[in-house]
């Protein structure tokens, strides 16, 4: 359903490309994990799909097709139509995507306002509450009327998830969506994502540094380093038998609850 072909992105202010020839596909109903070095181009890849590249400050080439519609070179009007409705995005840093002056609940319901103007404001309110509840926000009625700075890091992250899933897009781009969540809520969010994937067939690109979470959620995984896709395969295969040296190092560095005197420890 999503096909990225030979994507190149180079920011004018940088010498090296942020993304160098990445090709990736996400099949219908698939959850693809994207992991890799910090700064390796994961977010830039996702932003290219979402039509959110700062086009004026970079050069880009290649193609990105969502069910046959070309996105990378598409004009703004088309992209705006896709955003929220066809493609939902959970940004790595929620604050960067939130309007500080708008109530949380209104931001959660915003894609409904844009894409389903026929829905009454009362219904929109209830839809927003329902989405917030799905995303495990406690007291949605209370949280609805608060502003972004009044929420904890993990609450904002859940508000962002609620905003992304409210209109049941075809594709969800999740960029580090669980970094600010405690393990209990994280487990609930993973269940929610699995359920949306199962019941609504939503496909997902799941970017994360938490490799244990990726292993639990994603059937396939791609590994990036320095703008290049260095490895791709079934998650279990990659874990059991990583080929690229970077993948090997990555898997070896997963923090575990080993006793402090364990041999693993000299890395810390």
């Amino acid at each position, binding site marked *: 359903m999503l096909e990225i072909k030979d994507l190149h992105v180079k920011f004018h202010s940088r010498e090296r490309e942020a993304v160098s020839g990445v090709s990736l596909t996400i099949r219908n109903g698939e959850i693809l994990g994207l992991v890799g070095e910090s700064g390796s181009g994961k977010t830039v890849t996702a932003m290219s799909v979402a039509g959110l590249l700062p086009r004026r400050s970079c050069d880009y080439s290649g193609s990105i097709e969502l069910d046959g519609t070309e996105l990378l070179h598409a004009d703004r009007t088309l992209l705006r139509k896709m955003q929220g409705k066809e493609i939902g995005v959970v940004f790595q840093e929620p604050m960067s995507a939130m309007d500080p002056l708008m109530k949380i609940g209104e931001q959660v319901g915003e894609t409904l306002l844009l894409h389903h103007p026929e829905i009454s404001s009362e219904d929109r309110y209830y839809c927003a509450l329902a989405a917030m509840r799905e995303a495990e926000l406690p007291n949605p009625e209370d949280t609805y009327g608060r502003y972004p700075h009044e929420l904890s890091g993990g609450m904002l992250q859940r508000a962002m998830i609620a905003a992304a899933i409210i209109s049941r897009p075809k594709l969800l781009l999740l960029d580090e969506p669980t970094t600010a969540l405690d393990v*209990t809520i994280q487990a609930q969010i993973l269940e929610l994502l699995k359920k949306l994937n199962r019941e609504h067939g939503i496909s997902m690109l799941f970017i994360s540094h938490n490799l244990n979470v990726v292993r639990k959620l994603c059937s396939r995984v791609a590994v990036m380093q320095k703008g290049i896709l260095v490895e791709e395969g079934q998650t279990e295969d990659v874990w059991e038998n990583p080929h690229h040296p970077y993948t090997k190092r990555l898997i070896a560095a997963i923090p575990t609850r080993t006793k402090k005197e364990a041999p693993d420890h000299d890395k*810390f």
Partner: protein
Amino acid sequence: MTNSDLVLSVSHVTSGYSEGGFLSKRARREILHDVTFDVHHGEILGLVGESGTGKTTLARTILGMVKPDAGTVTHYTKRPQMIFQDPYSSLNPAYTVAWILEEPLRIFGKYDAPERKRRVADMLARVELPEECLRAKPEELSGGQRQRVSIATALIQRPRFLIADEPVSALDVTIQAQILKLLKELRDEFDLSYLFISHDLNVVYQLCDRVLVMKSGAVVEQGTVDDIFDHPKNEYTKQLLAAAE
């Protein structure tokens, strides 16, 4: 223990936020309830707990950004530093990374320009940031690069006490291991103490000496890492550890 062993003492602190801005007289929302703990010299104290429970609020209260309604916070060091959970909002968007890192040295340090540059370059290398990041503004960086800028800004000031709020959550595990190693080295070299807030229990287990567990704004359990992880007493601690399996 005598007070000279302490870098921080938090005693029966109750704290929260006023609703609806500065002028309105609406109720105060109490977030922290009767929180008490100490941080000792050279200690890495972990803080774990529910999302939304008040960990960041506790950090803000310790630094005086939020005034406690009751109880006391006593610092035994000067200029404690904080690595904020959200580097996006805490780094000045108008300046380059080079400027942001050099600024505290200009204000507090007694170093000339070449020495400042040397220290900035050294810190940049220690947090594994490529040199080209120096010329970038915060919004032109990746999430993990921003987080490392924020770590570098705090560490370059050579604090004696550092509060780190989810400092490695945006880093891949290899760089994360590098940063954790750096934090330990600084502790060993400079007797630096930390309050280390994290949702990653494995990281807390590997890095910290003692842990506080928070739930609904209260500390429900505290003890050494081995005690808490191997013999948790509180129901919530048990749940948390089970969910991390």
